[in-house]
């Protein structure tokens, strides 16, 4: 059977157990480009589109479980209140066509350094849930994405969901590219303020081999913020941007220079923090 179209997760992991080399297909927005340009020639496709349980967003007292097949379109249309930072990031992905097809699980599966969902997931300390016939396990996003387009997923494992903890406080994401739509990030940021724990968290995209946090910048900003008023002075906000830029490790490529990326991520970091505080 060259293409398997299971309707349940159990059947899907059984297919992968039989053939760990099968090409997992979610929304196809990365996979089909690879196939059309002959960078990948599928022999056996495992299509996930019919597995309803992968399409659900569910809430528990601990947080939110986002099924791997949830699309950017679903997040921006239906879950913007529950997942404000992810909804903001989703709105910047590709075009309406791409957002209707592209999934959060696919962004994790591709694990591009510029994947726009990843900085927010990293800032939220999200955990990726993986399943195989051997069982399930959860890995923090930071451990799941091991390098550019490399992940800790075993060949027989499916990404089934990503878990984000419940968190009170403002969130903001920002993305820089040559235009407002249909661009791969030159740099992007996700800032979340955990007002209960009085913590600042940032995820930075496209400025390193994987999405990055900036622990020193986060700690200094948490000190500088007046948490009762949710205010910080301009110097502290500028210092946050500088410290984030210092924590980045960007490269030169056809989209940008390392120097510009470092500058840009600092500007975006300050801007995201400002928007969180003003909100």
């Amino acid at each position, binding site marked *: 059977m060259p293409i398997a179209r299971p309707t349940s997760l159990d059947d899907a992991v059984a297919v992968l157990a039989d053939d760990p080399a099968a090409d997992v297909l979610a929304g196809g927005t990365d996979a089909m*480009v690879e196939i059309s340009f002959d960078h990948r020639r599928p022999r056996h496709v495992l299509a996930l589109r019919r597995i309803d349980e992968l399409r659900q967003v569910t809430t528990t007292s601990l947080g939110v479980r986002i099924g791997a097949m949830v699309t950017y379109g679903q997040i921006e249309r239906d879950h913007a209140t529950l997942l404000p930072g992810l909804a903001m990031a989703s709105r910047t992905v*590709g*075009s*309406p066509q791409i957002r*209707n097809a592209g999934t959060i699980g696919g962004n994790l599966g591709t694990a591009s350094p510029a994947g726009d969902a990843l900085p927010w997931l990293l800032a939220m300390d999200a955990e990726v849930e993986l399943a195989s016939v051997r069982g399930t396990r959860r890995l923090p996003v930071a451990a799941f994405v091991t390098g550019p387009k490399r992940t800790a*997923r075993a060949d027989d494992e499916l990404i089934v969901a990503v878990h984000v903890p419940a968190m009170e406080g403002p969130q903001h994401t920002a993305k820089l590219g040559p235009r407002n739509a*249909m661009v791969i990030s030159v740099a992007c940021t996700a800032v979340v303020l955990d007002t209960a724990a009085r913590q600042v968290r940032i995820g930075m995209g496209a400025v390193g081999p994987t999405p990055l946090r900036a622990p020193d910048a986060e700690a200094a900003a948490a000190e500088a913020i007046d948490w009762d008023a949710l205010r910080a002075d301009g110097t502290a906000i500028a210092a946050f941007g500088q410290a984030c830029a210092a924590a980045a490790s960007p490269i030169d490529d056809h989209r940008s220079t390392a120097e510009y990326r470092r500058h840009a991520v600092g500007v975006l970091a300050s801007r995201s923090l400002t928007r969180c505080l003003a909100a």
Partner: protein
Amino acid sequence: MTDHDATPDLTGPDLSESYALSINGRDREVADAWLGESLLYVLRERLGLPGSKNACEQGECGSCSVMMDGLLVNSCCVLAADAVDADVRTVEGLAPDGTLTDVQQAFLDAGAVQCGFCIPGLIVSVHDLLDRAPQPDELEVREAISGNLCRCTGYGRILQAVQDVAAARTAADAQEDRP
């Protein structure tokens, strides 16, 4: 470990598939297709539906836009063999043969068509927009067509055509509501 940078193994047999698709409300058989074929390829090369255009084959231009289960997608990014059991609507399915939809007519009237290559995709996107948001403001229109590239028009007359349809539909609704 997934490692997408590894040199792909492009040898081995090309696997073929047979399946049925539902296109514009009709069941269509696809026989002996290569497993990796996109929905766009199958529509154009196997099913005789060349309205959806192929300009990039990488999701960038929107000229292959179709509706799949009620959602606007790029047919070049859909694996045809995975579109089984989906309701696919192409530009050909918008109006009976030989007639035009109000959106198509408005594009002509506004002079929004130059070479025409991008137009089928734009027509599908604009129908989708106006079904969801009957009176879109300019920003909504720009966002809705941000995945449809036009190299000729500069978009001005396209934006005009969309507003013309929205106005005409609103006027027609008002007429109907009159006692």
